[in-house]
């Protein structure tokens, strides 16, 4: 049953992706992208990755919808026809996709217990996490203790990205409101 649900959801994902490529109205593309995110989150739930599903739903369906709509406010809501040929981009994306599929061929089967990822540092996390950190939740201990510098770097990147978005959207709005009201000298 899980396989059937996964196959149905992944087929729908492919259909929605093709529709996003074909669709020229960017507002519709934003809505289709939000649908894509909810479908992807459902796939993650079926794959038993609930935390990833929650991130996908909050980032993909809520935050990026709002950010994309705010960007649409600054641009046109209709996509132009491409000026150059489409053969090269299509070939490039097919090649990259083919290489990714080729890379998955040597991966161990889904859910294998003795895959390298379960043998490397995971046993130490599971066995020694209470003695070394005192945090009862292993995922929290890994993110905030073993990989705290990594998490600090990620937080810095997200902080800088947030500042960039605020400057782009807020700065442009101030400029346009100044142009809109030239009779006000203050």
């Amino acid at each position, binding site marked *: *049953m*899980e396989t*059937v*649900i996964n196959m*149905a*959801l992944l087929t*729908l994902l492919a*259909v*929605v992706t093709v*529709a996003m490529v074909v*669709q020229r*109205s960017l*507002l*519709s593309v*934003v*809505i*289709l992208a*939000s*649908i894509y995110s*909810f*479908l992807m*989150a*459902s796939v993650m*739930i*079926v794959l038993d990755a*609930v935390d990833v*599903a*929650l991130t996908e*739903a*909050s980032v993909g*369906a*809520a935050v990026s*919808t*709002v950010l994309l*709509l*705010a960007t*649409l*406010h600054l641009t046109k809501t209709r996509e132009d026809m491409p000026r150059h040929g489409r053969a090269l981009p299509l070939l490039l994306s097919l090649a990259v996709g083919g290489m990714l599929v080729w890379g998955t061929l040597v991966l161990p089967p889904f859910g294998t217990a003795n895959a390298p990822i379960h043998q490397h540092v995971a046993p130490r996390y599971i066995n020694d996490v209470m003695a070394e950190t005192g945090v009862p939740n292993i995922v929290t201990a890994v993110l905030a203790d073993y990989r705290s510098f990594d998490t600090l770097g990620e937080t810095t990147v997200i902080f800088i990205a947030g500042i960039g978005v605020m400057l782009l959207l807020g700065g442009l*709005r101030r400029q346009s409101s100044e142009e809109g009201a030239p009779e006000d000298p203050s």
Partner: protein
Amino acid sequence: MMFAGAAAALLVAFALAALRAIKGPTVFDRALAGNTVGSLAILLLAVFGFLTGRPEFLDIALTYGLLNLIGTLAVLKFFRHGDLAYDADEGKEP
């Protein structure tokens, strides 16, 4: 068995909502279909939890409900005003 049937019905509903979102023809059809897909994701989460005998993740469905509302509201507000930060009182003298 009952939950498997419910999951199959949900998948059919997913396909119908996605079809409506793709065919359109207006933005409202697509916004409604997007909202429907969000609600169906909540239902699938619940049904799948009981299907596999582990309904512990039911709380996450609440978060999905909130997220779904934000996305739909943002789309509709943009469609109505062309601006997410629209404020009806903006620019008026106090």
